[in-house]
């Protein structure tokens, strides 16, 4: 089995347009959840979100390119470009066939779909745009990344709601570890701020009317966010042989299904994902220092997640640092796992745990060290990053410092 090195990172979300900008804000505990650009008419019940505020598509793509690329795919490509540039990988020869692209997204290209319906049902115009299908398809980002970099290996997209990109990274990790591929470009993206989708979230009554306050006694729900995270995973020896800078290591992946309820969380499913991830990494709970929590900020998720962490970590839970960076970049749904895995890798690399921002008061049901509001300097060697999806699907990654 090959060790799996992380040799490139790429990020674009509410926190910034690249890893450097995003890390500065994560380290500063700066929440970028703010007033929506379009508050809706009539206004949505929630007025805040975490848009990729500084992202300007024309800075990255020609107008012609944008005809074919929806926002979720644009974000995926921009993050992938950053990660690949950092890795220094050049795709030629054998590597082209031995590099995978595995992305995650929850809903794919929602804007084009809604535009099509608007024409059909509102304007009674039966002519829907000819690029609706290639723009909408969930694999639009993966396909464009593969096209742009000329990779010919396995390329596909995983869709498991809020766990999508952890499932994607986990699959890519296993492919590199087993030697099926030498390298993988993997992560996820989501662009949620489409009217129909926002109305659907509104109807679910899980979005906070103000902001996202994970683990805080007064938490009132999640804040939606958009963005993308991509990493380059590489066979350790391959990375060493070309003197690549290794930024971190993926060592384990675990997944499970609650088989409990379509939306209500339970303790056992998430606990199993964490347990299997540690088994996969051949590590014990005592070796983990930091948990980047799913931590959505809903009353149900956070209390349940804390119990699941306690179930897996036992006494070790008291020593763990646990934070939810969703308090700063929002819940980016299918991109959440990737963005948070990168936040976790950066935390390991910098010995600095990003905080749970917007925290106001302790909830006895969430009585772990949730690193409230200010980043914590700590020598951390290994961490897990959790994602739990609607539908009861759970995926946990185990990451290590180099």
């Amino acid at each position: 089995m090959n060790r799996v090195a992380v040799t490139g990172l790429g990020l674009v979300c509410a926190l910034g347009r690249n890893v450097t900008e995003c890390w500065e804000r994560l380290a500063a505990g700066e929440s970028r959840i703010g007033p929506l650009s379009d508050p809706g008419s009539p206004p949505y019940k929630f007025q805040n979100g975490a848009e990729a505020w500084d992202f300007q598509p024309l800075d990255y793509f020609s107008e012609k390119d944008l005809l074919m690329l929806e926002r979720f795919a644009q974000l995926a490509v921009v993050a992938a470009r950053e990660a690949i540039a950092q890795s220094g990988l050049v795709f030629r020869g054998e590597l082209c066939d031995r590099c995978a692209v595995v992305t995650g997204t929850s809903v794919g290209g929602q804007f084009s779909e809604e535009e099509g319906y608007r024409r059909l049902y509102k304007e009674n115009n039966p002519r829907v745009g000819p690029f609706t299908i290639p723009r909408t398809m969930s694999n639009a980002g993966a396909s464009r990344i593969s096209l742009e970099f000329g990779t010919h290996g396995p390329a596909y997209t995983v869709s498991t709601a809020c766990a999508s990109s952890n499932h994607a990274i986990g699959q890519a990790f296993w492919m590199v570890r087993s030697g099926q591929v030498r390298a993988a470009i993997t992560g996820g993206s989501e662009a949620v701020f489409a009217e129909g989708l926002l109305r659907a979230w509104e109807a679910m009554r899980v979005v906070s009317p103000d902001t996202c306050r994970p683990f805080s006694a007064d938490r009132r729900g999640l804040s939606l966010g958009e963005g993308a995270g991509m990493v380059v995973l590489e066979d350790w020896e391959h990375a060493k042989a070309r003197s690549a800078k290794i930024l971190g290591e993926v060592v384990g992946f675990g997944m499970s299904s609650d088989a409990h309820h379509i939306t209500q969380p339970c303790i056992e499913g998430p606990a199993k994902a964490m347990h299997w991830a540690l088994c996969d990494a051949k590590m014990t709970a005592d070796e983990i220092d930091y948990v980047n929590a799913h931590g959505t900020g809903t009353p149900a998720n956070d209390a349940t997640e804390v119990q699941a962490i306690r179930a897996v970590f036992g006494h070790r839970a008291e020593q763990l640092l646990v934070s939810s960076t969703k308090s700063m970049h929002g819940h980016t749904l299918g991109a959440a796992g990737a963005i948070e895995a990168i936040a976790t890798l950066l935390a390991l690399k910098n010995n600095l745990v990003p905080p749970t921002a917007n925290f106001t008061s302790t909830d006895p049901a969430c009585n772990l060290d949730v690193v409230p509001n200010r980043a914590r300097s700590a020598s951390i060697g290994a961490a897990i990053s959790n994602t739990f999806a609607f539908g009861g699907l759970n995926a946990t990654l185990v990451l290590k410092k180099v």
Partner: protein
Amino acid sequence: MSEYSESNDLGTQVIRIIAYTQRMPPEAISLDSTFEELKIDSLDGINIVFALENEFGINIPDEGVQDMRSVRGAVEGVRKLLEEQKQAVPPGAA
């Protein structure tokens, strides 16, 4: 008119709406039933609230949803919102 009921009695109307959303006979529901007894979970509750909002043209705030744990709670919640709505828009006002 409504797809649920033509009754003017608010309790009966709410019961019919709950019955419709839960695909259960209205006879199985009484004013004294709790949602727990009816095996109505939080997601079902959101669906009921959605149907009540549509039926009565009201907006049930999240705080109001918390109080709707029983049929009577739902009826009282709807009654209160309807009364507030009446006061907010006096008859004859545009």
